């Protein structure tokens, strides 16, 4: 068999649409995960015991169930009880919920790593607990979490390929279609390998830059 990438030329547009869908789903899910992760991280430090337990159950539960099972439950299970959500929305929700469990861990450790002296300075200055959280704790925790949140995003890009199982023609889904249309699975999956690798490589490059930019003023040596 001859390795011939040119046979894919007519399908480039279709594949690009799939890639765009992957990127869209991942960006939305990242936003969802960080917001959810933040809320859950806050809940895990809540004064109310039942809130803490609920948050803990969520994190434990969604980390210990295969993503594909979560996804099938949302997409094929929920309609049985009258809840219909389209494939893209389902995918974003499922990725957000799964990613949120990891993001909450990341953000929580970012919060716990904050030097207590900084919090004491805020406290004696009379800053309220809420203001201390929004103006000091959260910004510091988020910027120190950029790298691990980047890993969550990369994981999300990889996991998003599973969305093809619920009829969503994102990158993997459209590749499958092209493969079966052209009968050239070798070429198409080589391309898929390269595109995923490039995508995650680009993202981790971006994360590194963002991390350095945000923490620029914190990284410079003590002088």
């Amino acid at each position, binding site marked *: 068999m001859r390795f011939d990438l040119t046979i894919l030329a007519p399908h480039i547009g279709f594949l690009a649409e799939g890639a765009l869908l992957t990127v869209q789903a991942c960006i939305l899910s990242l936003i969802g995960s960080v917001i959810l992760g933040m809320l859950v991280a806050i809940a895990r430090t809540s004064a109310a015991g039942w809130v803490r337990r609920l948050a803990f159950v969520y994190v434990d539960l969604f980390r210990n169930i295969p993503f594909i099972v979560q996804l099938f439950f949302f997409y094929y299970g929920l309609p049985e009880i009258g809840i219909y959500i389209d494939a893209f929305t389902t995918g974003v929700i499922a990725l957000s919920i799964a990613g949120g469990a990891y993001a909450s861990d990341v953000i929580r450790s970012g919060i716990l790593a904050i030097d207590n*002296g900084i919090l004491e300075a805020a406290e*004696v200055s*009379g800053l309220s607990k809420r203001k201390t959280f929004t103006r000091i704790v959260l910004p510091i925790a988020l910027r120190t979490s950029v790298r691990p949140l980047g890993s969550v995003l990369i994981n999300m890009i990889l996991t998003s390929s599973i969305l093809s199982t619920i009829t969503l023609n994102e990158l993997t889904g459209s590749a499958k279609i092209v493969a079966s249309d052209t009968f050239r699975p070798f070429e198409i999956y080589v391309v898929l390998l390269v595109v995923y690798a490039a995508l995650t490589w680009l993202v981790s490059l971006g994360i590194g830059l963002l991390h350095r930019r945000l923490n620029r003023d914190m990284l410079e040596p003590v002088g």
Partner: protein
Amino acid sequence: MLKVENVKKSFGAATVLNGVNLTVRPGEVVSILGSSGSGKSTLIRCINGLEKLDAGLITVDEFDVSKPKELAEARKRSGTVFQLFNLYPHMTALKNITLAPVEVLKRPRDEAEAEGRALLASVGLGDRADAYPAQLSGGQRQRVGICRALAMKPRYLLLDEVTSALDPEMTAEVLTILAKLAAEGTTMVFVTHEVEFARQISNRVVFLEKGTLLVDLPTKDFFDPAGGLAQPRVAQFLSKMRKD
């Protein structure tokens, strides 16, 4: 007036403050000396409400720090400068200074910023307003820390070994500023190991030993052979400090 009356504080089985009495009147500079572990930091932390008292009473201008409702008022009247600066790392020097005036005192931002810049200029950091803590030297950081406390216009400035993380040159920078503040009549409670400096700027010197105030005398008397120095522990402490 800042009043500490018969204050007791233990951590588990260890009694750290065992009936401390101290009065600081407006305009006074009171230095607190004492060996390591004698409870100096704990005393400061009781005054600014970071530690709860086990017994006794601390009032800052009549506001009882043990009563949650009064603590907020008490805290508005005292400003704390920390040994390790404790600046907010994600904010510029100016932001560090204006955060509490804007959020707590509800001062208009532009006024708070103008005052913040003036404070920075007064400590020789007029051109570093936009620098982040990590871009400043230790001495510069501590000067920002002092500005941050002063920006709240406290009646009492609490300073806990504010130069002990600094090298001699930076220590001198910071002490110059404290001397200026003292000369301007700023009320200060000054925990320090800088005995000579304490002697220069204080109205009174107190000596804390194992959680009790062993000596509380006007500065001149504290260093007098018939006064503070008559206490063997004080004499021993001072001669050790001089040797170091």
